[in-house]
């Protein structure tokens, strides 16, 4: 029984918890720069969270246990998801507990309960948010699964560590058309799932345009803190999932600590670049009409399907 894998596992979860707000702050910072503004500090998300944790909670009179339970569950599910995606090393004790399909299902749990919490209070906006969220999710999930299927065809497996290992050993994998298409569709889906422009605007103030925000209008204090933290973690998780399945080079394939530290450095570097790309997309595009999202996700599905086909046709 070796101890290193467990250390790495713990390190990954710790990274998830602390890197996620940092990444969110980085994205915010870049956004401010790209709009020619002075940005708030990189640590702003931590400050928001710590303030929210220290504040009181105001619950609606008719809030049921579901409303109070949801933040904790969403948080727990995100941590669970973070512990199975190979971020630093593929040699994880928990990597066998869940494959990529389970990962998608874990996100589905969080969404399911958030949507229920949105309907729990009985305001019009909460219901609207839940309805829209579930609609978009039900279009995004098939595309998401098609994308990961395309990757898992290349990786000959659906277990994340295995896929990562196979692809990073495969060499010049970027020449594989199937992966290119899968990456394209994965980007579109990640934008939709994490509620970024052009699908949803994370910092809108206008209730009628909200999708995810509308469900959490009623939350306050530590509940809100947990939900916002989980949101940042979701963004981070999608990014590391993309890195693990498309740019795995640098992720350690064993539990040698030195390699793992280099992996950490590489990871931070990659996160920085992904942030730039994300902000370029977000600054360059405008939010879509909600019924144009069908076409957006439809093209994501198209790319994933083409990826799968080109695996059979061209490889």
């Amino acid at each position, binding site marked *: 029984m070796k101890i290193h894998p467990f250390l790495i596992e713990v390190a990954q979860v710790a990274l998830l918890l602390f890197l996620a707000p940092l990444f969110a702050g980085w994205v915010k910072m870049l956004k401010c720069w790209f709009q020619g503004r002075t940005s708030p500090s990189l640590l702003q998300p931590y400050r928001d969270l710590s303030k929210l944790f220290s504040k009181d909670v105001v619950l609606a009179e008719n809030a049921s246990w579901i409303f109070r339970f949801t933040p904790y569950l969403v948080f727990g599910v995100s941590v669970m998801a973070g512990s199975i995606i190979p971020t630093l090393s593929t040699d994880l004790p928990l990597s066998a507990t869940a494959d990529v399909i389970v990962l998608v299902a874990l996100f589905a749990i969080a969404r399911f309960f958030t949507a*229920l919490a949105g309907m729990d209070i009985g305001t019009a906006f909460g219901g609207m948010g839940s309805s829209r969220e579930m609609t978009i999710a039900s279009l995004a999930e098939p595309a998401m699964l098609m994308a990961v299927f395309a990757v898992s065809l290349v990786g000959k497996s659906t277990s994340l560590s295995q896929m990562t290992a196979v692809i990073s050993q495969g060499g010049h994998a970027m020449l594989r058309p199937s992966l290119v298409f899968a990456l394209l569709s994965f980007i579109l889906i990640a934008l939709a799932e994490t509620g970024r422009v052009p699908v949803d605007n994370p910092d809108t103030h206008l209730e009628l345009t909200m999708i995810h925000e509308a469900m959490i209008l009623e939350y306050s204090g530590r509940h809100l803190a947990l939900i916002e933290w989980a949101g940042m973690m979701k963004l981070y998780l999608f990014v590391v999932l993309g890195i693990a399945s498309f740019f795995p080079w640098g992720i350690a394939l064993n539990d040698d600590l030195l390699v793992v530290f280099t992996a950490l450095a590489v990871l931070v570097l990659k996160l920085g670049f992904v942030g730039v790309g994300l902000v370029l997309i977000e600054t360059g595009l405008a939010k879509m009409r909600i019924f144009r999202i069908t076409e957006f996700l439809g093209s994501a599905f198209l790319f994933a399907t083409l990826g799968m086909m080109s695996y059979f046709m061209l490889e």
Partner: protein
Amino acid sequence: MVLTPVSIIASSFAVILALLVLTPIVSRNQRLLIIVGFSFTTISSFLATAAGVWTVANGTISQVVIPLGLPDLPFHLRLDVLSGFFLTVVGLLSTFVSLYSIGYVNGFLGRRSITSLVVFYSLFLVGMQLVVLADDALFFLIAWELMAAASYFLVLFEDERVENRRAAFLYLVVAHVGAIAILLSFGIMAGLATGFSGFQSYTFDAMRETELPAGLATAAFLLAFFGFSAKAGVIPLHVWLPEAHPVAPSNISALMSGVMLKTAIYGMVRVIFDLIGVFPWWWGAFVLVFGLVSAVLGVLYALMQSDLKRLLAYSSVENIGIILISIGLCMIFTSFDQSLLAALAMIAALYHSLNHAMFKGLLFMGAGAVLHATHERNMDEMGGLIRFMPWTSSLFLIGCLSISALPPFNGFVSEWITYQAFLLSPALSSPLLNLLIPLGAALLALTSALAAALFVKAFGVTFLGHRRGHHAHDHVHEADWFMRIGMVLTAVTCFGLGVFPTFLINWMDPITEYLVGDTISSSAAGFGWMWLTPISHERASYSAPVVFLGIFAVVAITYLLLHTRSGAIRRAPLWDCGFEKVTNRMQYTATSFSMPLRRIFGFLFSIKEHVRLLPETAHRAFPEQLQYHLRVRDRFWIWIYQPIADASFWVSRRIGRMQHGRIQIYLIYSFVTIIVLLIFSK
């Protein structure tokens, strides 16, 4: 009496018989009748479950010949692993539902006599158990008809309402059309076994022996598939489900939707894999396509409903579709001699049958509890029930989680195995199938995502928020203890099936061994009971216990951390944007929740919606009242059933012309008939 599966099942029938004898005696005291009747059925179903579990565990095959029925056509019974498995499915759910019924049926006391309910309920159970036990065509069809007839009367139980009578009639018609198809299919197979002259080949054994020529085999398969689909509610033969299930008493809908549909699945598996045995791959593709269509359309139709039980009925169509998908995959793999993958797909199919029996039973029981409490089936009139019915709401939530395939509950396991089967399809040696089958996986993903949306809607609109209707919950009360016990047991089973899949797969080994000649448990449980690793652990692995414990641990830790800290929770009115005139009518309803999906997938339905301003004279900007009319109809009804109905009416009207009511004319008819017969008999 020596204790064998056969003797156990016999004693279970004996219990039912005793009940039928006892019923007339106690029927005077209805409350007593309820307790006696349903406790007897509970015992009998439990015995059936035990027999089934035992048979599958041992993999034994025991046959019995009863010298009953027509002269020299004795009844054959056979208890093998397949019938054992479905006996378990039937027995387990009927045990729970019988317990539940002790509480539920009390609701009818004083309103009507429940004697008929008890009698037909027990006959229904017997019918379903005999269907899976029958080993010859004759006895199978008799049991099938017994099941159909009993369920017909159960649907008709509250017969004062006209829609119940219409639904029951529709159900009867479709069931019998299906039965005829099954009869013909058996006829073909039996006829080929030993010519059309003798009757000796009506046993399933004789059919197993015979090699069918391809053409006739296809005919037999198509007939059987059509016939059983009519019972299983495969699109486009599904129309009776959403009519019959809502109007039946909820414990009956639970049984019909949970297990009666599974007997049709049993019939398909029995005929295709056991009786026919060898088939080309396109049969599998055929089944797969029907499964996909049923799954996607079923869930979409369900999303459009605002009647809770109708919604559940349509979602049964969806789940039957998912089961058919796995069966189709299994057939394709079998025809390509990929026995290991075939075993995987078959496990997925059977596992999902068991799962669907459990969670759909649970959901219908929950819906029954809601109906019992509010006397309301329309979700737009409900809301906020979670505060009045904590037990029912939590159990219903478990059902919702299971059916929307969320870990760690059972629905997810079977769908996960199905995905694995899909992802292993590149092993097939046909490039076209390699391209096409993954698209099926995408459709399955669409289905499960839509199912999640569907059950967010079902739970959210029914139990969360405020009451959407006009009048307040004055009479709403929690379900009583028997109903709770029934539901709790089912929920626990859902959880257990979700968290400990490897045990079940080990148990199901003999079935796949018998049907496709291979087993997956050696690899599936290769890493011990905690890790489910079909095929190999590099390929994929899932550990429900660890996932569950992990989430649970994090949630618990976070909760404790945050609650040892002082932090007053203050209750305040909901945030209505400061607008004081917010009413409960402003919440999202079932109709408005599914509006975006209705707009995206609208082309699949025939939707009529129009808004009327009241009063008519009002300016468009300042109406006093808006009336919104929405009618979503099943296109299949318009395309297929309406024409058939019209045609049959037309024909009967023509035939009606021959009726004159004058005896001489009738005599002429018969005289002419005799002449014609004499001419042709030469």
